[in-house]
């Protein structure tokens, strides 16, 4: 799917103040094409996440913006000036690395001061800004420590401070939370989000974790095999996925494959009216959009179907049911927590919740 099409199904690009523009950026490594003509705008002050599996090209794109790789085609512009022709040390961009890359032979304070030191900033200004940065990430008490003595979460904050102290126009974050354990991760996510809101710097965040992307981003750019699959806000991308891939990658869904014939779509045991053209089609239906039909009645805008419950997985707040609708068609249904449900039942979902998606 070309980026032009992707943009059509999304919200329009935010405010005209696009800070970073990638124009048809492509990258080869030998014979392998890792990025295929990406065009993307990032607005000033935005928190944009590059989301994708490993091999999708998200890290490569980040490194192109940072300056550690050169694009084989296309251009990158920032603030109205050409970016990709500049070496990394001349760009107003700073990176938080996946494994932090803190300098082990320097103390925390010296690490944070590094960027200012090499630009020959005046000493009093350095110490002031370093203090400020450390306070921002709540590491001011560790200024004299060595990075090797710190925990993963602490190192990550120092890495953040080290990048932010330089007041870059754009901050790049390369899966910075992936090395942390689950609880710490959740905590850092909310801190990161709050931090970004507070200081207003544009964040370009890379992750493979879609929950993380949903929690943090103003917009998500989903990458697949080197191309943009969809670029939209979390709500938009969840409610209106453009493709089957997107629907499955972000959250869970049921992919209903079927045929449209004379304004009726038939997907296995399910049928409902649509105003679409004839032909094969795929619909995405989220498990939570389906509910039990206790009284057997259905509204005009709803679709009813019957199925036997094969499996029920309880997860505290909800139940995930696997429902057999006959003919090998299995649907997943998410219901609020209840008692075990067995046997055949009737289910309903709203017409509007069945979203047509491309392959």
């Amino acid at each position, binding site marked *: 799917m070309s980026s032009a099409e992707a943009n059509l199904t999304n919200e329009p690009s935010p405010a005209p103040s696009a800070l970073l523009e990638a124009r048809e950026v492509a990258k080869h490594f030998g014979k392998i094409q890792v990025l295929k003509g990406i065009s993307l705008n990032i607005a000033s002050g935005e928190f944009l996440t590059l989301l994708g599996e490993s091999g999708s090209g998200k890290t490569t794109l980040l490194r192109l913006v940072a300056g550690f790789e050169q694009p084989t085609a296309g251009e990158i512009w920032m603030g109205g000036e050409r970016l990709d022709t500049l070496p990394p*040390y001349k760009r107003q961009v700073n990176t938080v690395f996946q494994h932090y890359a803190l*300098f082990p032979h320097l103390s925390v304070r010296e690490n944070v001061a590094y960027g200012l030191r090499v630009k020959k900033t005046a000493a009093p200004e350095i110490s002031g800004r370093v203090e400020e940065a450390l306070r921002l990430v709540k590491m001011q008490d560790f200024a004299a420590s060595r990075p090797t003595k710190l925990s993963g979460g602490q190192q990550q904050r120092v890495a953040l401070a080290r990048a932010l102290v330089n007041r870059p126009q754009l901050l790049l974050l390369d899966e910075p939370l992936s090395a942390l354990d689950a609880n710490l991760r959740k905590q850092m996510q909310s801190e990161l989000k709050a931090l970004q809101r507070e200081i207003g710097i544009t964040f370009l965040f890379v992750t493979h974790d879609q929950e993380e992307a949903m929690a943090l981003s103003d917009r998500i750019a989903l990458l697949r095999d080197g191309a943009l699959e969809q670029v939209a806000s979390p709500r938009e991308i969840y409610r209106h996925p453009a493709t089957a891939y997107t629907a499955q990658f972000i959250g869970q869904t049921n992919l209903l494959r079927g045929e449209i014939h004379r304004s009726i779509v038939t997907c296995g045991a399910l049928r409902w009216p649509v105003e679409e053209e004839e032909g094969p089609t795929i619909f995405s239906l989220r498990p939570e959009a389906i509910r039990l039909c206790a009284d057997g009645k259905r509204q005009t805008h709803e679709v009813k179907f019957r199925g036997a419950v094969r499996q029920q997985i309880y997860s505290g707040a909800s139940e995930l049911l696997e429902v057999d609708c006959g003919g090998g068609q299995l649907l997943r249904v998410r219901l609020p927590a209840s008692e075990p449900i067995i046997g055949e039942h009737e289910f309903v979902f709203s017409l509007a919740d069945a979203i047509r998606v491309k392959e």
Partner: protein
Amino acid sequence: MVLQVSTRSSTRRAPLLTIYAALVFAFVYLPIVVLILYSFNREGVGGFPPRYFTLEWYRQLFADGPIWDSVLNSVIVAAGSVALALTLGLLAALALDRASFPGKALFRRLVLLPLILPGIITGLSLLMLAVFAGAQLSLLTVFLGHGTALISVATTELFAGLQKMDRAQEEASLDLGATPWQTFWRITLPNLKLSLIAAGLLIFTLSMDEIAVTFFLIGRDNTLPLEIWGRLRRGITPEINAISTLIFVFSVALIVIWYRVRTRGLGADARELLERP
């Protein structure tokens, strides 16, 4: 057949093997122990058993001018070799780690060759170069010979150090605004500190002890090993035992420090790096 319960095989008893291992250890250490013992023996280098402890030979040693001149020569050559080998070795290690150019595989082998070739080959070929260039044999030729041969040691150690280094640190430095030159001095070199010290110690020790290559490149001024060699031609005295003992003690001290430096912070992987001496 009863299936054996798997035991921690690393500490199982094996008495015969233990004895054999002890014997091998003895074989490796005994000659040196004997040599040290006889440096205190009044009645000379041979015979058994050694009687009459004396420090006479050490007294003679300390009064022996020419020996200490040769020690000074050796130290000068060794220090120079360390500087030369570390500089070129560092560049070579960086080149092997980061650059690709035609003939790189050949270059790598060539750099490591002096390490595995008999010293006579390296010594003779450099002698021919000296003659070809019309140069006088002297400590300078010895220095060039040692330096060249020992680049291989430096390259091996420093290359291993570079591989262990987190590449992202150099990227981080560039990202924060440092130029490649600044990055080299502020980040790359400090990270290589341990490797540089370890390589330096080893090169110094090897240069001080070097004979085979030195044999063909020596001029009028002797290095310590060559000085001792010359005396051996004239006849052996326990004074040679004495200087040998001192060399042994000094070398052991340096090597122990080298080993400690090397394994500090590297853990079990250090043993892997010692694969090819």
